[in-house]
C-alpha cells in the first residue's frame, strides 16, 4: 500500500482527475476552495479544462453544457453555493445527464458560518430544484472513503445518467489523513450516442432539452425517471453496520458524526449500555435495508446529526414505528463530543 498524507478536498480533486474527469467549473466558497485550487494546478497537465465561473449558477450551467456535449465533468461548492446550483441540477437531472457535484457542507441557514455541518441533508436528498427528480448522494466518513466514493460517483452517474453528489461535511474536506489511490481507476469511456456534439459525429440530430409542454409526454418522462429512481434505490443503497449484535441502542449517523459515534460505543459499554451503529453511506437512496438488522430487543434508535434534525425523518420512515426513536444534534458548526452523545443516550433510556 502506497499511502500519502492528504487533505480531504485535495484528495477528492485528485480522485476525480484519476477517474477521468476532464472538465471542472466552479466558484470559490469556504470550506471547499482546495478543490478548485487543485484543479487549477493539475487539470491542464492532463489536457483538461479548469474554469472559474462568475457564479455557482453559471458553473452548474457550464456543467450542463459540458455534460450534454459528452464531457466527464465535475463541480464543487458548499451549502449556499449548492442552493444556487439547484436550478441547474434540476435541468441536468431532467435531461438525464451524468455529472458529479461535491458539497462540502457548512452551517446555515443563510450565509451561516464556515464550520462543518450536516444541515444540508434535506438539500442533498430532497433537492432545492423544481420538479420530481433525485440525485444520488454519497456521504464519506474518511478521506480514503471520499476518494473511493468520487470514483464510484462518476461510474454510477454515467451508468444511470443522473447527477451524483458527494455530500461531505466541512470536516472531511479540511482534515488530513493517509490515503491510498491504488484502487482508483480511470473509468472506461461510456458511449454517449445522445450527446450534442454536431451532426457530423452521429446519425440524426441530437437535442438536449427538458421542455415537455404536452402533459402526457411530461408525465411519461416523470414515470420513466421514477422507474430509474426505483432501480437505483434497489441497487445502489450503501451502508455500514457496526456492533449490531444484541444492541439495545442503535445510533444512526453518517460522515464525521459516525466516527464520533463509533468512539461513543465503547464509552456506552462502560455505562452498561450495548450500542450499535447504522451508518448510511448513500443518503439518497436512503439504506432502509439496514434497519431490518436492528435486533428485536432494541430499546432505542437515536439519530445523531450535525443539524437540528433532518435525517431523523428518514430514520423514522425506515423504522415504520417498530422501535422508539430519538434525535440528538448539534448545529452552527458545533461538533458533538462522545460524552454529549453518551449523556443523550442515557437520558433517553431513563425516560423510556
Amino acid at each position, binding site marked *: 500500500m502506497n499511502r500519502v498524507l492528504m487533505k480531504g478536498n485535495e484528495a477528492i480533486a485528485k480522485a476525480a482527475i484519476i477517474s477521468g474527469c476532464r*472538465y471542472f467549473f466552479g466558484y470559490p466558497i469556504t470550506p471547499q476552495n482546495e478543490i478548485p485550487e487543485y484543479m487549477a494546478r493539475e487539470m491542464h497537465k492532463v489536457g483538461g479544462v479548469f474554469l472559474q465561473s462568475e457564479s455557482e449558477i453559471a458553473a452548474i450551467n457550464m456543467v450542463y453544457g459540458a455534460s450534454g456535449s459528452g*464531457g466527464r465533468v465535475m463541480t464543487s461548492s458548499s451549502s449556499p453555493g449548492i442552493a444556487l446550483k439547484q436550478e441547474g441540477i434540476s435541468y441536468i437531472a431532467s435531461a438525464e445527464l451524468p455529472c458529479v457535484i461535491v458539497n462540502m457542507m457548512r452551517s446555515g441557514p443563510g450565509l451561516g458560518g464556515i464550520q462543518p455541518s450536516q444541515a444540508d441533508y434535506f438539500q442533498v436528498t430532497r433537492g432545492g430544484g423544481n420538479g420530481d427528480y433525485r440525485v444520488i448522494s454519497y456521504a464519506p466518513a474518511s478521506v480514503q472513503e471520499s476518494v473511493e466514493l468520487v470514483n464510484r460517483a462518476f461510474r454510477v452517474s454515467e451508468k444511470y445518467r443522473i447527477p451524483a453528489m458527494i455530500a461531505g461535511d466541512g470536516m472531511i474536506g479540511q482534515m488530513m489523513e493517509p490515503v491510498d489511490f491504488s484502487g482508483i481507476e480511470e473509468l472506461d469511456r461510456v458511449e454517449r450516442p445522445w450527446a450534442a456534439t454536431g451532426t457530423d459525429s452521429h446519425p440524426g*440530430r441530437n437535442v438536449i432539452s427538458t421542455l415537455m409542454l404536452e402533459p402526457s409526454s411530461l408525465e411519461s418522462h416523470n414515470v420513466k425517471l421514477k422507474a430509474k429512481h426505483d432501480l437505483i434505490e434497489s441497487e445502489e443503497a450503501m451502508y455500514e453496520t457496526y456492533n449490531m449484535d444484541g444492541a439495545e441502542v442503535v445510533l444512526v449517523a453518517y460522515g464525521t458524526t459516525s466516527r464520533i459515534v463509533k468512539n461513543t460505543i465503547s464509552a456506552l459499554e462502560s455505562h452498561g449500555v450495548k450500542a450499535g451503529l447504522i451508518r448510511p453511506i448513500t443518503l439518497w437512496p436512503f439504506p432502509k435495508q439496514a434497519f431490518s438488522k436492528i435486533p428485536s430487543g432494541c430499546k432505542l434508535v437515536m439519530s445523531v446529526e450535525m443539524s437540528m434534525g433532518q435525517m431523523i425523518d428518514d430514520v423514522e420512515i425506515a423504522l415504520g414505528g417498530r422501535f422508539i426513536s430519538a434525535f440528538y444534534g448539534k448545529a452552527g458548526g458545533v461538533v458533538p463530543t462522545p460524552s454529549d452523545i453518551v449523556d443523550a443516550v442515557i437520558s433517553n433510556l431513563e425516560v423510556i
Partner: protein
Amino acid sequence: MAFIFKRTAGLTEKPTHYCPGCSHGIVHRLVAESLEELGLLGRTVGVASVGCSVFSYEYFNCDMHQAPHGRAPAVATGIKRVLPHNTVFTYQGDGDLASIGTAEIVHAAHRGEKITTIFINNANYGMTGGQMAPTTLPHQKTTTCPLGRDPESTGMPLRVSEMISTIDGAAFVERVSVDSPSAVRNAKSAILKAFRCQIEGKGFSMVEVLSSCPTNLNLKPSEAMRWVRENMVPYYPLGNFRSPKGGE
C-alpha cells in the same frame, strides 16, 4: 431553370409556432442560411433559451441544447470547452439576455468565449404575455407597466450592444434590424461576420436584432415593423460597435 430561392438546409421542416409577422421567423432563417453557407451545420451546437424561441431546438437543423432562463451563455461555455472545434451559438430574447441572464452574457463576453450570440430585442417579454423588459422604451405600455414605462422608477432601456462593446473579450458586436428588406440583408451580413469571427477564433461575437412582436404590441405585422423603425431605431442606433482588428 436556375434556382433563385429555396428552403435552407439550416432549418428542419417543422412549421414554426411563431405569431404571424414575428421577427423570430426571419431571424431563424438568417441564422440557418448563414450556418449553411459557411458549411457549419454538421459541427454546430445551438443553445435555445427560454422565451418564445424556446422551441428553436426543433427548427434549427443542427444539434441543439436547451438552457435555463438566462443561462444560455454559461451552457454554451460548457459546450465550447468540450468541443472547441465546433461552432456554438446562443439564441436569446431580451428578457432572457438583458434581465435574468445579464451576468452570464457579460461574463461570456468578458472571457472572450468563442461563441456567437443572436440577441432578439423586441422590447418586451413575449412568451409570458408582454410584460416589461429592460429594453422596453420609455412610456411604452406593457402588461406590467400599463401606464407606460416610467424611467423614474424603472430606469431607462438597457443598451446591451453598447454595454457589451466596452468589454475587451467582445470581438464583434453589431446592432441590426429586420424591419425592411434592406435591413434584413444587413442583418444577414452581420450574422455571417459574427460566425466568421468565431471560426477564426477572434473572441465573443454578438448580433442584436431589433425585432417586432406584433401580438404584444397589439399592431398588425406591417405596423409593428414600422413601430420598430420609428420608435426602437432612434433609441437603439444601428451599426457596428466592435470588429476584430485587421478584420471586417
